[in-house]
């Protein structure tokens, strides 16, 4: 913190409780906010370049390495894109297994963020360890829920981090009925624990703020969307199919970030739980929908601080969906459908825990990837995060630097930013001049 010639500077060099490394720089001059920059300084990771020249079968394994928290999202979006390029649709029980695997990722990622990263903000703790000293039973519940999410990844994906059992066309091995049935008792416990989680976070003090940008997500058809073919926005201005993504969402470089910023042609936007919920709440499974209503969520939710409630509701939904799909499961005759290479372009999109994740691949007739484009949710959310921060700082200029800094960090964590994903990117600096 420095006060110099009417300048106020708040400086946090490394943002805490986020996935990866980044920073925020805020400058306030003569009581007016002049600069808000979310600095993503984690080095570029060049995954799109790595993929060029590789076989069409490799993206699920290569792109899973982009993130240890949400590898399934990368695997699913890449598989969908390659299969689209090759003219193959994976459906039936193989699609159901992908859905259960994705439920596991939502559970482990959302629970990690709710319990270990975000809840301490609302309850006034420096971190999860301090919170655990006062709320041992609650943190134990979170650890057990997270373990279940990891277990789903292990059983279907082969291991909890960077799953190895996913391939273009399906899986290398599919689980037996009994292997999935063994998960049911813990999933039934988890469903209730998730409901308890919704009740817990719904009681947190919520800052009164609503964003005015659009919210973009997959538009579900029969079920709350994990993977899909249609994209919609809450305003209704953006409605397009996944292959049209690049025509509507443009990426651009800014000097203070190694992650490209996403821009929607119809205006500012954000992706993530608020978008998914606001667009698809009618498709939530019954218990999750009832829990959302009990928590005070209505048709749209534009308060980013309430994203923690929506995440908890989505954990309920993931448990319900996993139980439903396991109950209907019968092993497919083959673990994967054949996918033969052909020259073409494919597009795939799925809902990573942090929001819409788009992949596009161009492959030649031999199945060699000639171009790859990956647009992660955190890249798309950078502008919205900076927008929120500007509003939060302007509305709270009377707060002392320490309190304002904490509020800024909480604001950033509303988006559960995955910096490593976005660089394919946190440190907070507020300058009051």
């Amino acid at each position, binding site marked *: 913190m420095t006060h110099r010639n009417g300048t106020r500077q708040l400086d946090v060099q*490394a*943002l*805490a*409780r*986020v*996935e*990866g*490394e980044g920073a925020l720089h805020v400058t306030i001059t003569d009581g007016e906010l002049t600069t808000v920059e979310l600095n993503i300084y984690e080095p570029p990771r060049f995954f799109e370049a790595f993929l060029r020249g590789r076989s069409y079968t490799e993206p699920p394994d290569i792109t899973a*390495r982009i993130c*240890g*928290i949400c590898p399934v999202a990368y695997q699913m979006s890449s598989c969908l894109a390659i299969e689209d390029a090759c003219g193959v649709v994976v459906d039936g029980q193989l699609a159901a297994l992908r859905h259960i695997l994705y439920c596991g990722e939502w559970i482990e990622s959302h629970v*990690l963020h709710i319990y*270990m*990263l975000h809840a*301490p903000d609302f309850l006034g*703790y*420096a*971190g*999860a*360890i*301090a919170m*655990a*000293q006062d709320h*041992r039973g609650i*943190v*134990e519940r979170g*650890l057990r829920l*997270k*373990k279940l999410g*990891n277990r789903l990844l292990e059983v279907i994906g082969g291991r*909890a*981090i960077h799953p190895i059992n996913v391939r273009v066309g399906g899986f290398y091995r599919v689980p037996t009925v009994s292997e999935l049935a063994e998960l049911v008792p813990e999933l039934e416990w988890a469903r209730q624990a998730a409901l308890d989680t919704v009740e817990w976070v719904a009681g947190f003090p919520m800052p009164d703020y609503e964003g005015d940008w659009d919210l973009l997500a997959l538009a579900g058809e029969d079920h709350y969307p994990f993977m899909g073919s249609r994209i919609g926005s809450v305003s209704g201005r953006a409605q397009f199919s996944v292959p049209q993504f690049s025509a509507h969402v443009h990426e651009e470089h800014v000097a203070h970030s190694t992650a490209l910023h996403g821009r929607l042609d119809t205006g500012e936007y954000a992706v993530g739980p608020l978008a998914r919920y606001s667009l698809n709440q009618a498709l939530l499974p019954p218990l999750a929908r009832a829990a959302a209503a009990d928590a005070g969520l209505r048709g749209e939710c534009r308060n980013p601080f309430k994203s923690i409630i929506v995440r908890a509701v989505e954990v309920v939904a993931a448990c319900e969906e996993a139980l439903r799909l396991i109950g209907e499961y019968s092993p497919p005759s083959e673990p994967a459908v054949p996918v033969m290479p052909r020259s073409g372009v494919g597009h795939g999109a799925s809902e990573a825990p942090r929001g819409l994740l788009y992949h596009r691949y161009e492959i030649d007739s031999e199945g060699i990837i000639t171009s790859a484009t990956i647009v992660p949710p955190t890249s798309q959310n950078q502008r919205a995060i900076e927008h929120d921060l500007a509003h939060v700082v302007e509305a709270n200029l009377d707060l002392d630097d320490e309190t304002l800094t904490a509020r800024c960090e909480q604001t950033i964590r509303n988006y559960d930013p995955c*910096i*490593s994903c976005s660089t394919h990117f*946190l440190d907070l600096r507020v300058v009051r001049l």
Partner: protein
Amino acid sequence: MTRPLVIGIGNPYRHDDGLGPALIERLRLAGEDRLEIVEETGEPAALVQRWSGHGCVLLVDAVDSGGLPGGLHRFDCQRGSWRAGPPPAVLSTHGSGIVEAVELGRALDRLPDQLVFFGIEVEDTSDGVGLSPKVSVALDSLVRELPGIASALATPATRATPATRATPLPCQEAQS
């Protein structure tokens, strides 16, 4: 009675940072059956859940404290105190590891009776696979000694022996 649990932590694609997984592989190849051996990434919640219910746990990971490559550190996590390193509350998920796991375990009353950390000083943590010669030799030595150390730790009469030999470390581990 449960066997002593050995947890090897590290990233095999960053040369010497992969000594934890390499230890697990060498113990398996040696047919070691007196120990339960597992590999972990170092993620705190997973570590706490992994060691819960075990009485004697040995953690093995790479250390970069500026010491001579191959140097061995030993630290009693249950009874020692951290000398340095950023406080757990200010770390991103990529900077959290053994310190946070131990403190989370302590807050939840989930620390094993015996929780000892063994660290080997690294020489090369650049991209790539395989250990540097000095680290590999040191790891071989630890592989030979670990069963005996675990047996001694698991035996109540020998626990009075001070378990800390090296200076407490600012153990930091990155999750990829």
